[in-house]
């Protein structure tokens, strides 16, 4: 049908050629995206070759100096990459496990299923700032309900915001609030799996677990591929949850992932050039990750 839609309309009076209208109508949208997304990214690349202060009008071209410095900065850059990887992969894996389990459960038929599907999306709807403050309350050392319950169950107390546990806490909170993304993605696909496949597997004597491995998982492969890619990229660049829970000082040191490090370099130490270099490194890492990921997936497909 597309050709039908594009047929020229009856001409009326003086006319501007059709295709100009297309450009004209798109112009504001394209201009905004070019000016406020694409240009900043290129500008960021340019800034990364400079020493630039956030407020003072200092700007000197220093070539690759920013990159050299950050690559030699073990306690700052490399540590933040390491922590970022723990956070990114840790929370993504948990989200996939939890989200997939929830989707499998919500795909069964049971009483109150429609309501549960709504409830499953709850954590995703709460604004991040509220998630952070609410979890600080629930996990509060003195008055929090979870430490109290865990105490009474004999699990004992955990210092959720102590240096040993704060990374775990941030990962768990992120998992709680973002796993519905995985549910939404996989549930939609689960519903379209042909029930015949399950009956056939049942006839062959496959139990629940084998049906999951040999029927469900292969069918979900494509969706999971996209979901894992998106989640990893989103989590690796996640700023607000971590920042709102731990902040810049104190325990923030133990959760200083690459996005936090970038933010603090730029707006804490006011070194915009170095911050821009960090942004570019983050972008590069995402591209490399995506390329490797696609390559691995393609190889898997051929087998």
């Amino acid at each position, binding site marked *: 049908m597309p050709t039908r839609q594009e047929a020229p309309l009856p001409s009326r009076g003086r006319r501007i050629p059709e295709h100009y209208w297309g450009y004209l109508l798109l112009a504001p949208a394209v201009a905004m995206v070019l000016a406020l997304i694409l240009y900043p990214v290129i500008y960021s690349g340019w800034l990364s070759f400079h020493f630039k202060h956030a407020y003072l009008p200092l700007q000197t071209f220093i070539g690759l100096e920013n990159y050299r410095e950050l690559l030699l900065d073990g306690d700052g850059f490399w540590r933040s990459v390491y922590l970022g990887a723990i956070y990114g992969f840790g929370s993504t894996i948990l989200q996939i496990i939890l989200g997939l389990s929830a989707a499998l*459960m919500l795909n069964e038929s049971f009483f109150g299923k429609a309501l549960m599907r709504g409830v499953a999306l709850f954590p995703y709807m709460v604004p991040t700032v509220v998630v952070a403050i609410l979890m600080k309350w629930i996990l509060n050392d003195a008055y929090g309900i979870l430490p109290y319950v865990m105490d009474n169950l004999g699990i004992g107390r955990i210092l959720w915001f102590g240096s040993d546990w704060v990374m775990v806490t941030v990962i768990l909170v992120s998992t709680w609030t973002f796993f519905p993304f995985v549910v*939404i993605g996989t549930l939609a696909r689960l519903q379209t799996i042909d029930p015949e496949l399950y009956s056939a597997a049942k006839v062959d004597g496959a139990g629940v677990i084998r049906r999951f491995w040999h029927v469900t998982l292969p069918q979900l492969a494509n969706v999971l591929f996209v979901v894992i890619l998106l989640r990893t990229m989103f989590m690796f660049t996640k700023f607000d949850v971590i920042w709102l829970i731990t902040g810049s000082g104190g325990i923030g040191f133990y959760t200083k992932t690459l996005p936090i490090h970038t933010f603090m370099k730029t707006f804490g130490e006011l070194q915009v050039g170095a911050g821009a270099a960090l*942004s570019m490194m983050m972008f590069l890492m995402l591209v490399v990750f995506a390329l490797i990921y696609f390559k691995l997936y393609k190889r898997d497909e051929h087998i």
Partner: protein
Amino acid sequence: MNARLKKILSRISFYIGVATFALFCGFPMIWMVLTSIKPDGDILRATPVFWSWDTHLDHYRNLFDQTDFLIYFVNSITVATSATLLTIVIATLAAYGITRFRFTGREYIAGGMLFTYMFAPILIVVPFYILMKNYGLINTKLGLVLAYTTFSLPFSMWLLRSFFQSIPLDLEEAAMTDGASRPQAVVRVIVPLAFPGVIAVSIFTFIVAWNDYLFARVLTSANDMKTLPIGMNDLYNATITDWGMMMAGGVVVTVPALVFFIMIQRYLISGWGAGAIKG
């Protein structure tokens, strides 16, 4: 008999799983609401009180009387609404242009717009800040509106495009043979038909603007420019935490997002693959 018992047992354990899951998802919010209506004496207890017999709305009153929460609330509404209106206008024009006209590079533009959605906010915030500073847009609502509009444009355009594609051209032509000009035909015939799409786009943009912390943090510092996420966080950091009041604030910030989310749910689910939900 044994098989039947096994079946019943597995059914029961399944429902226990469902109940646990419901608690896991829903309890934090229930606890937030309960805390927000409890007197301080019941909030600050080593043994938490689930339900207080002395519930009141004092925390909500304090929030609006003793803090600048109302200013933040109005700012958030203003910024989110402006960004939404601007997005609708620009995205509608673009989506119409891209579905109804044939021109070179059309597919590239559509694809490129979606690709930009992959740039995470943290990657853009540094240069974005410098740009806004150069144009004198720091501490203005306009700066925030521009940021949120740009971020929601690619998805909004993509969603509206799929709506426009489903509207037959004949309807537009019929209106035009009846003497309507093309803009009239679009406004009276096409936009009403694509209305669900327009609503979905509005709510999506509104939520983006309503929830954002990073850009609001970087682009504003004056107290009378703060939006809710900034205001909430600064209130939390400012003094010894008044948990009842913070939870009341949490409820007030969450409710609009929750209501809009429920309204938009089915569009999000159909559109998630193209980056409908980011974050």
